[in-house]
C-alpha cells in the first residue's frame, strides 16, 4: 500500500506523438506522484514541451494512454485537462493586459449574479487565491501595470483557483530575477506541502537540482531515466552528471578561455541618464574586452543599452565610439559609427519572424547590396557565409526565420549584427532560452569576435555566464552602477550582494 506521498496522481503510458517528419515523443511512460516536484530536463527538441502539451491537452497523442487520478483517457483538450486538475503556467503568460487581476483570474468562468459580473465577490475570491500563493497584489489593479514576476503569481493563482492538483511550469524562472525566483521556489515548496504536484521544466540545472524531488531526463523524445534527487549527490558534480545524461556525453567546462583585452578604448559612456530608469551611468569598454552587466530585472540595464544605441531618449550623457560622438535618438547613426545592439526580445524586437533568413541577416546592412537594386545573389552569398561560420542549421536561407529552432534564430539575430562589422557589440541576454549546446556556441562566438578586437558588452541574468565570460562585471541596481567587479572580486556572492543592495558598493 503506497503512502499518500507515493500515490500516483498522473501517469502516461507508451505515449507517442508524431509530427510530419519527426517523432517528438517516443513511447514515454511516466508516473507523477501526489505532492512531488518533478523536474523534466533535456536539450531543445528532446520532447519535454511536447510531452507537457499532451498532458495539458494542447496536443493529441498519436498513441498511448493518459491516466488522471485513476481515470484513463486517450486524449483530452485544455479545458478537459483543467477539469481533470492539470493546469499549465505558460511561458508567455496568457493574461489580458487591459483587464483587472481579478477578471484575469476568473477569465472564462466569471462569478455572476444573474448575468452580471459580481465584481465585489470576484475581487474577494481573487484576493483569497492570491493569498494562497503568498501574493498581496490588489485584485482590482490592471493586469498591464504588473511586473512579470507578479503576472506569474497571478497565473499560478489562476491555475490553483481551478483546483489544479498538477501544475506544469515551463521555464518559469527564465523571466525572473534572482529574488523573485527565490520567492517562486518558496511557493513551489508550499504547494508541495499542500499536495500539489509540480512538473518543473527548466534549463537551469542548479535550480532543478535544488527544488525537485525527482528528475526525469529526456533525450530525442525518449525518457533516458527518472531518478530521485538524492541519487545525483551535491555540488557541481551533480550538475555535470545531469548535463551528461541530457546530452549523452560527458560535459566539458563550457566557457572558452579569455584573451586579454587590448589597450584602445572603443565605447565610452559618460553620465548617461534615462528618464526614470537610468541615472548617471559611466563606463568604458576596450577593444577585445567583454564587459558584463549584472543586476536584477528592473535595474535598468536594457534601458541603458537602448539609450546608448539611440533607441531610447537620453535625459543626459555622452556616448562615443572611438572618439566619435553618437547623437541621441539616432539608431541609424549609431550603427554607422559601429555600434550594434542585440535585443533581449528576439521575437518582438530582434527578428522579423515572418520574413526569410536572408532578409533578416541583411536588413541592417542592406545598403551594401543595393546599388540601387538589391542583388539577391550577393545577399544569399553573404548569408551562406554567416550560416556556415555560425553553423546555423536550416533547410534553405530563403525560408522564414520562424521555421528555425530558438538557438538557430538567435544565431541569425547575431549574424545580422555581425554583418555590419561593428566596433562595439552589446548583447542583451543572448543565451536566454537556449540549450547548453547552443549556449556554448554563442559563448564561442563572443570569444571569437572579442578576439578580433570587438568591444563586447554582455548583459545577462545568468551569473555563471557573466563570471565565465567577462573581464569585468558592472553591477547595476535601480538605474545606477553600484559596483564594478574585477579579477578575484568577481564571485557569484559578490555580484548578488551588490545587485540586491545588501552590500554597499565603494562607488555608491
Amino acid at each position, binding site marked *: 500500500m503506497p503512502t499518500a506521498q507515493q500515490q500516483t496522481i498522473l501517469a502516461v503510458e507508451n505515449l507517442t506523438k508524431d509530427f510530419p517528419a519527426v517523432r517528438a515523443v517516443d513511447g514515454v511512460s511516466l508516473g507523477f506522484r501526489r505532492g512531488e516536484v518533478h523536474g523534466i530536463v533535456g536539450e531543445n527538441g528532446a520532447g519535454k514541451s511536447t510531452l507537457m502539451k499532451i498532458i495539458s491537452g494542447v496536443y493529441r497523442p498519436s498513441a498511448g494512454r493518459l491516466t488522471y487520478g485513476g481515470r484513463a483517457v486517450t486524449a483530452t483538450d485544455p479545458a478537459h485537462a483543467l477539469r481533470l486538475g492539470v493546469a499549465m503556467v505558460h511561458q508567455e503568460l496568457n493574461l489580458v493586459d487591459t483587464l483587472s487581476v481579478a477578471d484575469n483570474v476568473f477569465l472564462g468562468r466569471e462569478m455572476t449574479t444573474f448575468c452580471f459580473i459580481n465584481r465585489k465577490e470576484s475581487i474577494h475570491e481573487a484576493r483569497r487565491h492570491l493569498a494562497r500563493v503568498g501574493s498581496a497584489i490588489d485584485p482590482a489593479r490592471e493586469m498591464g501595470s504588473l511586473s512579470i514576476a507578479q503576472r506569474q503569481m497571478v497565473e499560478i493563482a489562476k491555475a490553483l483557483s481551478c483546483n489544479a492538483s498538477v501544475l506544469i511550469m515551463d521555464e518559469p524562472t527564465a523571466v525572473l530575477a534572482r529574488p523573485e525566483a527565490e520567492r517562486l521556489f518558496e511557493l513551489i515548496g508550499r504547494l508541495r506541502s499542500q499536495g500539489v504536484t509540480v512538473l518543473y521544466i527548466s534549463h537551469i540545472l542548479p535550480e532543478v537540482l535544488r527544488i525537485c524531488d525527482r528528475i526525469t531526463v529526456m533525450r530525442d523524445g525518449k525518457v533516458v531515466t527518472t531518478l530521485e534527487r538524492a541519487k545525483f549527490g551535491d555540488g557541481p558534480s551533480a550538475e555535470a552528471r545531469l548535463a551528461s545524461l541530457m546530452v549523452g556525453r560527458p560535459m566539458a567546462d563550457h566557457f572558452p578561455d579569455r584573451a586579454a583585452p587590448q589597450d584602445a578604448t572603443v565605447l565610452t559612456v559618460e553620465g548617461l541618464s534615462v528618464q526614470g530608469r537610468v541615472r548617471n551611468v559611466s563606463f568604458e569598454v576596450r577593444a577585445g574586452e567583454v564587459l558584463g552587466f549584472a543586476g536584477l530585472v528592473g535595474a535598468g540595464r536594457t534601458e541603458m543599452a537602448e539609450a546608448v544605441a539611440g533607441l531610447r531618449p537620453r535625459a543626459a550623457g555622452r556616448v562615443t565610439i572611438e572618439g566619435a560622438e553618437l547623437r541621441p535618438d539616432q539608431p541609424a547613426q549609431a550603427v554607422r559609427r559601429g555600434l550594434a545592439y542585440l535585443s533581449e526580445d528576439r521575437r518582438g524586437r530582434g527578428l522579423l519572424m515572418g520574413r526569410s533568413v536572408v532578409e533578416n541577416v541583411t536588413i541592417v546592412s*542592406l545598403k551594401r547590396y543595393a546599388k540601387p537594386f538589391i542583388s539577391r545573389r550577393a545577399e544569399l552569398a553573404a548569408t551562406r557565409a554567416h550560416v556556415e561560420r555560425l553553423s546555423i542549421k536550416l533547410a534553405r536561407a530563403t525560408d522564414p526565420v520562424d521555421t528555425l529552432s530558438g538557438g538557430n534564430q538567435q544565431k541569425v539575430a547575431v549574424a545580422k549584427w555581425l554583418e555590419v562589422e561593428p566596433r562595439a557589440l552589446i548583447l542583451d541576454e543572448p543565451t536566454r532560452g537556449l540549450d547548453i549546446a547552443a549556449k556554448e556556441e554563442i559563448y564561442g562566438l563572443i570569444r571569437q569576435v572579442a578576439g578580433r578586437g570587438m568591444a563586447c558588452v554582455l548583459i545577462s541574468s545568468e551569473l555563471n555566464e557573466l563570471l565565465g565570460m567577462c573581464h569585468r562585471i558592472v553591477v547595476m541596481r535601480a538605474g545606477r552602477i553600484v559596483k564594478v567587479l574585477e579579477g578575484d572580486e568577481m564571485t557569484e556572492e559578490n555580484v548578488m550582494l551588490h545587485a540586491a543592495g545588501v552590500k554597499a558598493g565603494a562607488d555608491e
Partner: protein
Amino acid sequence: MSAEPDGQNREPDLGPEGLVAVRRSWSRRRTLEVFGPLIALALLVLVTTAFNPTFLLPENILNVVENQSFVGLIALGMTFVIISGGIDLSVGSLMAFAGGLGIWLMNTAIRAPEITAAAAQAQQAGMEVPYGAVRIALAGLFGWTGLGGSEVWGVLIAVSAVLLAGLAAGLLNGILIAKGRIAPFIATLGGLAAYRSLALALADGGEFRSASAELFKKLGAGGLDIPYLTNRYGNAVVLRWPVLALIAAAVAAHIVLNRTRYGRYVYAIGCNERAARYSAIAVDRIKIITYTLIGGLTGVAALLNSSRMNAVSSGQTGAMLELDAIAAVVIGGTRMTGGSGQVWGTVVGLLILGVIGNMLNLLQVSPYLQGLVKGVIIVAAVLVQRGSRTEQ
C-alpha cells in the same frame, strides 16, 4: 524547443529533422497563397469564355483592363500601404477632390479673360459678381502672368495641380500617421470625409466640367494604335494611356517592392515595426514615403479618370473606390496584417474583379447584383487563403 520563453504555440516543437516537415507544410501553404488567385483568375476566364466567346476578343480584354486601370493605380499604392501594416481610406475622396481641383483651376485659367471681364462688368453695373473672390483673383493672376486664355497652359496647370494635390494629401497622411502617431485607419478616415466635402464645396455639389474641348481629353481617352490588330468593325484597337500607365506602374512597383531598400523596409515595418526600428530603419520616413506614394498614384488616377470623362462628379467620382482598391489587394493574397504580399497578386486581384464585372455584363446579370458577387468573391478569397494557412 521547450527553451523558448517567447515561443508561441504555433509550430510543433521539433528537432532539426522536423524542420524539413515544417518547411514543407510552409511551402504548401505558400503555394496556395501564391497561386490561388491565379488559379481563380484562370477559372473565371474559362467560365466566362465558355458562356460568351467574345470575352477573349482583344478589345474586350483591353476594355476590362482599362476599366480597372484607375482603381488599379491606386491599388498598387495600396499594396505598399497594406504591406507596411497600414491602410488608406482617403483615396476615393481624394480622387474626386484632386481631379475636381485640376479641372476647376484649368477652367479658371482657360476662361481667365472672360471671368475677369465679367467680374469687372458686373462690378461696374453694380450687379452681383457671378464668381467667387478666389476664382476672380486666380483669373487675374493667370491673366497677369500670361497663362490665361490658353488651353495648353490650362491643361498643364490641371496636370500639375492634380498630381501635386495627390502628393500633398499623401504626404499629409504620412506625417499624421508617422509623426502624429494617429492610427492609419483614423487618419485616412478623416481624409475620406474631408476631401469629399472639399470637392462638393468647390463644385457646389455638382460636376466639374472641363472647358478644354479636346486637349485635356486626350490624356485619358487617347492612346496608341496597336499595329495589325483591328476590332470587328475594322478599326485599329487602341492601347489607351491609362492601360499603359497601369502596366508601367505595376512593373515599376514590382521592382521597387522587391529590389530596393525602400521595398524591403516596407515589408520589415509591416512584419514587425519595433524590430524594424531596432534594426536602425528610419520607420517614420518609410511610412511617409509610402503614403506619399499612394497619394501620387491617386493623383495619376484622378488625372486620367477626369480626363477620360472630361469631367468630375463631386459626389460620385471615386466613391467607395478605396474599398475596391483594398479588395484587389486582399484578393491578390496580401494580408491585412502587413508584412507580406506581392504587386502581381494585386494585379491578378484587379483582373479578377474586372473579369467578374465583365462576365456579369456579358451574361446580362443585373448591375445591382454585381456588388453581391464581388462581396462573395472577396470573402471567399480570404477564406481560401486562411484555410491554406492554418496548420494541423
